[in-house]
């Protein structure tokens, strides 16, 4: 009987310590924010295959890709995207599916248009900026294009896959090449072969990008702007040593970026543009680690400017994981 009690109490202790260890581990090792990736057919591919729409922009004819038409009409495109999505999911990195994202946006838009408050009958508020932002987007775009080369009866496929960072506009991964020419193989087979032979090299370069991100911080863009009606500007001086606001912001960037890595690309009395800003992957709050993104990073600067001695009211807007703008002088 005593032995049974002893066994029970030791089991309880083991379970309790396991729970404690799990809690410590969960709190101690936070996960960084995972970038979303989406395969998008390139403008060149859309143009070559006739999936463009033209509109008149104040007298100038502008051509933009018609992705919806491409997804509805081109079975090869679906096959290639499906193969890439499948292979990426196997590597533990499921992709955002562009076709579904477009459909979701359309249904959301229809739902928003129909929605009205039960009490006042008013619709959901949407600013012009909200409307502009309602497009299918991802943090990293896998821009896809292929061309079919024909030499006599032989066919081959030139395949190009580019990984583009949506915010910094940098190419972070790539895989490109021309496959073996074939007399007999169908286009679908050649395309599948192209995906299979390029995806691992693409992922290897993507991995290099992620490793660099964990070692040197996430690269983002921060913009500072001022509202027209704000009486001060970025040349306004603060403190005993009459430091200009732009200098104060630069000092803050120097202190808060990883290894003080950032570039002041542009600076005037009305705006500042910081590029290649390396923000840490995590931040600490109440002795816990949380994943950092540009919004959180910009909020830290925003709070700094709201405090004494500056007392600058400001507004933060963001674009995905990698771009933020702080508007000074009001909300």
């Amino acid at each position: 009987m005593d032995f049974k009690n002893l066994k029970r109490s030791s089991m309880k202790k083991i379970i309790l310590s396991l729970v404690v260890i799990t809690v410590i581990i969960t709190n101690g090792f936070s996960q960084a924010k995972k970038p979303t990736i989406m395969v998008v057919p390139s403008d060149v591919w859309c143009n070559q295959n006739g999936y463009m729409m033209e509109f008149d922009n104040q007298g100038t004819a502008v051509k933009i890709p018609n992705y919806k038409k491409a997804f509805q009409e081109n079975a090869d495109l679906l096959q290639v995207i499906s193969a890439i999505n499948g292979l990426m999911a196997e590597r533990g990195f499921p992709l955002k599916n562009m076709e579904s994202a477009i459909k979701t946006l359309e249904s959301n838009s229809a739902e928003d248009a129909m929605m009205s408050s039960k009490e006042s009958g008013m619709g959901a508020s949407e600013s012009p900026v909200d409307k502009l932002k309602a497009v299918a987007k991802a943090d990293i775009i896998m821009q896809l294009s292929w061309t079919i080369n024909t030499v006599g009866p032989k066919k081959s496929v030139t395949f190009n896959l580019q990984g583009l960072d949506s915010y910094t506009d940098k190419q972070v991964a790539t895989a490109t090449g021309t496959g073996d020419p074939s007399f007999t193989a169908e286009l679908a087979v050649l395309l599948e072969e192209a995906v299979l032979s390029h995806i691992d090299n693409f992922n290897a370069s993507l991995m290099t990008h992620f490793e660099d991100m964990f070692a040197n911080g996430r690269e983002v863009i921060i913009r500072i702007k001022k509202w027209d009606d704000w009486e001060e500007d970025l040349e306004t001086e603060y403190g005993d040593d009459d430091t200009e606001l732009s200098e104060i912001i630069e000092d803050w960037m120097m202190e808060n970026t990883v290894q003080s890595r950032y570039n002041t690309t542009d600076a005037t009395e009305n705006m500042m543009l910081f590029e290649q800003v390396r923000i840490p992957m995590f931040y600490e709050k109440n002795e816990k680690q949380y994943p950092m993104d540009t919004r959180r990073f910009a909020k830290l600067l925003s709070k700094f400017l709201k405090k004494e001695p500056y007392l600058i009211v400001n507004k933060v807007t963001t674009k995905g994981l990698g771009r933020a703008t702080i508007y000074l002088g009001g909300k």
Partner: protein
Amino acid sequence: MKIKSILKISSLMLFVLFSFVQTASAQKGKKKADKQTIAWRYELEAVATGVKGTYQIKTWTYSINVETAIEQAKKNAVHGIIFKGFPNNGRVQGQKPIARNASVYDENADFFKDFFKSGGGDYMKFVTLANNGQIAAGDRIKISKKEYKIGVVISVNVAELRKELESRGIIKGLSDGF
């Protein structure tokens, strides 16, 4: 009668000695080939785009006999895919190594010692000989009195190999840290 028995005993002794020498030579060949694998003395060549999740490559292995070379080629293929990668061959796409840097071997020396153990190492799970291990005439090159350079076509299940190494914590997965 006496001569007959002497002949019998001596032929038996000769047979035992011959088998011993052959086994010792095979062992020596394996050991030498093992050393050459670790010293990265082999070459990989892209043959064709494999089916989903596999690479089809030709492994050029150095050995004093063909049997050892065929067995060693399997080990070299897996070793090469993890640490060396292989270049483009005409229009067949080359691939980068799975391990991000060569120090992965030294950092996990005990794991790889077991993984590449001759006759039963885990590397065997990921390789298949193409064409039943048949070697084309041009792929058997005598490079010295005692040594051959032999090209064996092998299919390696890279998807499973990568998963195994990721699950053992030897290499990082694409989504690690997120």
